[in-house]
């Protein structure tokens, strides 16, 4: 827990877009509540109020990778030096690419600051949308391994290769956590690395390489015991679990975790596999659509960030590698060179790799949706919003990767009012997802508001439902409620129910969605108890759909 403390606080507290003031951000950072609103509000594509969309002199609106939360102190220094305030809104790499390519980002953001623009550049529509790109710092995606696992495997950190990691996993001797490649660049980079390493590709990955490596990739991903929509939450979940041997994350995140480990938590050994890594270069990229004033501010900011003072601060405080000549990397950053594994050069290959991961390579998901359909859900057409948010998750005929329930996924809908109303389970059949998705759509359509709110009893039923099935899956519960618990058992009952669950079942997190008049405190308690996370869907009509979509990264 403590190992991840600081990282968690930094990466999870997403400042809401309309609050540029640094003081507020600080306050937000102090909270350890896992509330995500920013990216949700952006993905939904709803128009925000004019006050929050227009460019304000000297405040740069930036769509950014969530791990950049650790740059707050450096950006504060930047503000003092340049007068430019940076307002960061978190986004996953693919999601940001979509926003930029589709034009949604135009007028809403002045710049993007992602770990990499590689995926974005595969979209031809993005070509005219980007102005100056300035790489600011770099960090490879690495493997953080517990010392005891390292000893058990007899590994020398400098000698480990991706095939060696695969072999250890296949032999059941190594487990790890990794972010969802569809939502987070560190996961995507790891997927590219391991596919390169296991296929023996000598150049940029091709479809044939991916196909050839598929059986071994499948074995490799049996060892993935933790998934996450963001690098920050992954570190938190890892700290909580304790039984996972390793973590795939940026070198900078792993070293920061080690630094912040209180009470002598054993530091992770950072392994940069000898056969190659994928490195993030964090290009601060101005959007061509930004007003001239914003682009000037962006230029002043990047000039400063590339200067020696900033570069020293960056490497010293965040363990990223400097890109300015003459500035030495922070102590602890190993200087031995590594091959840079090429990122796929075509969208077909990149998306193909992601689709295989989603539908074939990764362990399947078992997901229970605990859905409040109490009487109050008829207010403000909440039930309509719920139906539409859930229907979105079934995708359309042409949905991109990650836009619908995955092949092999077991989806259970558990609507409740005064008690559990129904338990409907559907499994998405590989190659023939239509029938299950249709069935889910039908179930969703028939949801009707009626009765009280039995939160805890319904949660217990959800755990019981998951207890009936296989364990070799990512299990999770999504709790959506628009009110407080009014019927059935209470919080105390649920606490002791949870305490009596077998260890394996305790690892099923509850992802709660704050909606309507639900009680933030009550939901926070549930997410903290179960190792889940709270998602805020109170910000506008499409926020619920945004939250449901975002939670997909954690399932």
């Amino acid at each position: 827990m403590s190992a991840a403390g600081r990282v968690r606080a930094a990466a999870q507290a997403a400042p809401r877009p309309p609050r540029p003031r640094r003081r507020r951000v600080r306050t937000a950072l102090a909270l350890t509540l896992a509330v995500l609103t920013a990216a949700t509000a952006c993905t939904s594509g709803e128009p925000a109020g004019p006050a929050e969309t227009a460019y304000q002199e000297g405040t740069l609106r930036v769509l950014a990778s969530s791990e950049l939360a650790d740059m707050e102190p450096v950006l504060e220094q930047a503000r003092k030096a340049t007068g430019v305030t940076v307002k960061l809104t978190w986004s996953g790499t693919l999601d940001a690419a979509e926003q930029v390519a589709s034009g949604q980002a135009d007028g809403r953001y002045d710049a993007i600051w992602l770990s990499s623009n590689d995926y974005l550049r595969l979209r031809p529509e993005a070509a005219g949308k980007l102005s100056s790109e300035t790489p600011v710092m770099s960090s490879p995606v690495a493997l953080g391994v517990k010392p005891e696992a390292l000893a058990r495997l007899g590994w020398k950190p400098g000698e480990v290769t991706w095939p060696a990691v695969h072999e250890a996993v296949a032999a059941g001797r190594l487990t790890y956590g990794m972010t969802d490649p569809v939502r987070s660049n560190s996961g995507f980079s790891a997927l590219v690395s391991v596919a390169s390493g296991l296929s023996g590709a000598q150049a940029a990955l091709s479809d044939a390489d991916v196909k050839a490596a598929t059986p071994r990739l499948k074995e490799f991903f049996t060892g993935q015991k933790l998934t996450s929509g963001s690098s920050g939450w992954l570190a938190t979940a890892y700290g909580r679990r304790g039984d996972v041997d390793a973590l795939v994350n940026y070198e900078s995140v792993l070293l920061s975790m080690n630094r912040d480990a209180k009470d002598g938590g054993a530091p992770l050994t950072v392994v940069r596999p000898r056969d190659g890594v994928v490195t993030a270069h964090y290009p601060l990229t101005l959007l061509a659509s930004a007003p001239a004033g914003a682009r000037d501010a962006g230029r002043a900011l990047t000039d400063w960030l590339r200067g020696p003072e900033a570069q020293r601060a960056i490497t010293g405080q965040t363990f990223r590698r400097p890109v300015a000549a003459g500035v030495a990397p922070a102590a602890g950053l190993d200087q031995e060179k590594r091959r840079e594994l090429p990122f796929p050069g075509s969208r077909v290959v990149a998306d193909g790799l992601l689709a295989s991961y989603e539908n074939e390579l990764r362990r399947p998901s078992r997901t229970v949706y605990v859905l409040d359909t109490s009487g109050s859900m008829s207010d403000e057409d909440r039930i309509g919003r719920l139906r539409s948010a859930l229907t979105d998750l079934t995708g359309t005929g042409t949905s991109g990767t990650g836009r619908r329930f995955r092949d092999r996924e077991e989806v259970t809908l558990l609507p409740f009012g005064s008690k559990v109303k129904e338990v409907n389970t559907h499994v998405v059949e590989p190659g023939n997802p239509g029938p299950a998705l249709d069935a889910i759509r039908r179930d969703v359509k028939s949801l009707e508001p009626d009765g009280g709110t039995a939160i805890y009893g319904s949660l217990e039923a959800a755990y019981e439902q998951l207890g009936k099935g296989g364990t070799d899956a990512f299990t999770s519960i999504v709790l959506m409620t628009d009110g407080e618990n009014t019927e059935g058992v209470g919080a105390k009952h649920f606490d002791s129910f949870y305490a009596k669950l077998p260890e394996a079942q305790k690892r099923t997190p509850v992802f709660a969605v704050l909606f309507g008049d639900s009680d933030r405190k009550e939901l926070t308690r549930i997410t903290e108890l179960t190792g889940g996370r709270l998602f805020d869907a109170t910000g506008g009509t499409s926020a619920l759909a945004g939250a449901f979509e975002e939670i997909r990264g954690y399932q």
Partner: protein
Amino acid sequence: MGFREHAAPVRRILGIVLGLLLIGGVLYVALQGQDRPESTATKTVRGVIGSEKSEFFRDPDVVKALAAKGYIVKTETSGSWAMDQLALKEFDFAFPGSSEPAKEVAAAAGLKGAQETRPFYSPLVVIARPGAAQVLATGGLATMTGKNSGTLLMGPFLKAAAEDRTWQQLAGSSAHAELTGTVFVKTTDPASSNSGALFLAATSNVANGSTVVADDAGIERTAPLMRKLISVQGALETSTDDPFRAFISGSGEPLILVYESQVASLLLQKQDPGEMVVLYPDTTVNTAHTFVPLSEDAKELGTLLATDPKLRELAVLRGFRPQDGVAEFTAATAPHAGYLNPGLAGIRQVGTPTVKILMALAQRAKG
């Protein structure tokens, strides 16, 4: 201690000096004003430039020199071959890395007979770490001309590329963890960025029997090799700044195509380039960074950059070779001769194909 004892007098003296400086400054400004009454009206001009010139325009001395001539220059960077896609109305000038995209920019902006100037140029070089350079030399793909400089032999290099040669197949590579995988030069996207496009111009010339590719037959002849050079790289960036910074930060590919100016600038600014060998390809294209004025305000700026002695000197300090300025460049870089080849000795300079041919090659290469 000494300072504290004399703190009061020192402060007084400082005050006087500062006062004098201030008066001097005012006088200077006033005199300047009298000197050139027509140019004191400062013009702010906005330009889009190739990223390789970004440091030049950000250089405080350049800013000062331009201000003295009545210009505040604001720049944004873009891939040279993508500039014609930008909203050019917002810019007073464009400054791509070679003459060919300049034509496209002028056409896109609807300009006819724009007064283009070519203030400076910089040849393309391949940077490597000593281990990689040594392995290339041992394998006959390069020759070393010094500890930190050498020549990339395009004939043997392209033959190796055609055969998908890997680093593992070259003697001596096993001592270096990073030297695995197909041997390639990391370029920028040839469809949008100048350096990548010029790399195709040079390599296609070699592959076409030392002749500029000028027709479909030439494209057919060279396209398969161009494809090998580009497609192995995977995702391509639009500016040399990305791979160059990757190199500086200790990551990146073993062989990276950059402008000579990027290396020379580091050396002349006395920044440690780290372990670096500069390989000059034995065949390079002869083309200069080309200034295209898009508005009345920037009409004279190109000529100023090309002819003003102070700006020429500053361009050299940022690693560029000013127009007809080999002597200036050679003199300034003399202390760093171990890295550079100012006279381009032993380098064959060739012409570039037309934009149409080059873009067709780029498309086939990325295909």
